[in-house]
């Protein structure tokens, strides 16, 4: 467990900005496997490899690729629903993996397909730790805040409450004025 958390700490997804170089080798193999169609298969893959960029920010991932037809995908960690890791035989030999991610969108296929990842496990753990429901701490924090609020510990000025107090005070004044007036009338 300790070694795992240590590895987790050492992993910084912000360093992943490009697919691993071995992805190009994989794409060459894929294109070779298509025999006659080699150039038609390889050129798009090559462009994809060359233009592919990842950005792992604090709250989300963006990914862009394409030269003539440019595409960008943005998503936040909190909305990630499904994390897949798929590796075929060749990818396993090369130590590569695909990490398709799903959000609630109804598209067929993955919302974002992260390809050319050398070590998928730390990346998956990273994403897993940030998706909803992976940890309870944040919920507990929110609950504690709500309880503090209920307990009357005021941290921020509450406009509704101060308005209510003003109404109450105005009413009190009105009542005392009235009773004074009625007392005067009686005397």
């Amino acid at each position: 467990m300790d070694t795992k958390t240590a590895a987790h700490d050492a992993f910084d997804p912000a360093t992943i900005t490009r697919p691993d170089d071995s992805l190009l080798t994989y794409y060459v193999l894929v294109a070779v496997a298509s025999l006659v169609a080699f150039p038609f298969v390889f050129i798009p893959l090559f462009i994809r490899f060359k233009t592919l960029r990842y950005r792992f920010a604090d709250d989300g991932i963006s990914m862009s690729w394409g030269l003539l037809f440019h595409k960008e995908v943005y998503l936040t960690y909190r909305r990630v629903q499904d994390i897949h890791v798929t590796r075929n035989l060749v990818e396993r030999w090369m130590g590569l993996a695909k990490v398709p991610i799903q959000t609630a969108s109804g598209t067929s296929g993955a919302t974002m397909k992260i390809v050319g990842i050398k070590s998928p496990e730390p990346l998956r753990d990273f994403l897993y730790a940030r998706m909803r429901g992976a940890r309870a701490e944040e919920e507990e924090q929110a609950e504690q805040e709500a309880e503090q609020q209920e307990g009357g510990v005021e941290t921020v000025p509450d406009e509704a409450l101060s308005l209510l107090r003003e109404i109450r005070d105005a009413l009190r004044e009105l009542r005392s004025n009235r009773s004074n007036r009625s007392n005067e009338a009686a005397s």
Partner: protein
Amino acid sequence: MSERAEKAAEWVYRGVWRVLSDWFRVPEHPPTLPAAAGEFRLSFHPSRRYLSYMKLFFWILLVVIDLALLAGWIVVCIADAQVGMLLALPALVIIVVPGIIAYIMIHLRYDTMWYVMTDRSLRCRRGIWVIIEHTITFENVQNVHVKRGPVHYFFGISTVVVETAGASEREGESAFAVGNKAIMQGIGNPKEIRELIMERVDRSRSAGLGDEPSAATRREAAWGTAHRGVLREILEEVRALG
């Protein structure tokens, strides 16, 4: 004979597994899920009856194909006995070898299917050539289907489908799908699994769509005890006025 055959089969099977794990990098151990020590964790294969279920289809297919091949060979024999004799050995190989390979593949397929559950999430792994691992947190689960066909019923197994938002009916049935649903095949105790999952889904107070109210919005919306106290005082004042 059966004991020796069993031993031989086991030896062959272990050898195949070693090739798979050493050369084909098929992981032998169940997938892990991040969970604190001592937390609930359950990892399991499909039910053994799922193996029998797959074998039933294997035998049906084998008998049909082999009978067809046998019939073809007999026809050749009748037409020309000499060619028939020459073809006897290849025909036998064609009849037997794919059957053995398919039989081993069924066992491998079964042994590479893993389901892991913790209090927070579910992870499924399947596949030999393409290995797919799917991770879902229960916070995101929308619904659970339990499906069972007549043959499933006979074997006492079910398919449990765990869906997140955005799952469609068509996706996910193919072996390479990476959709919004996890398909747990060959579950022998679907009731318990369903209970385990739904119990955890029920704990979630959101709709599972990433729609957590932030602390700030909750603060604005909530009428706390302080508010209610002042409101009560206002009510008293108004009553005293009237």
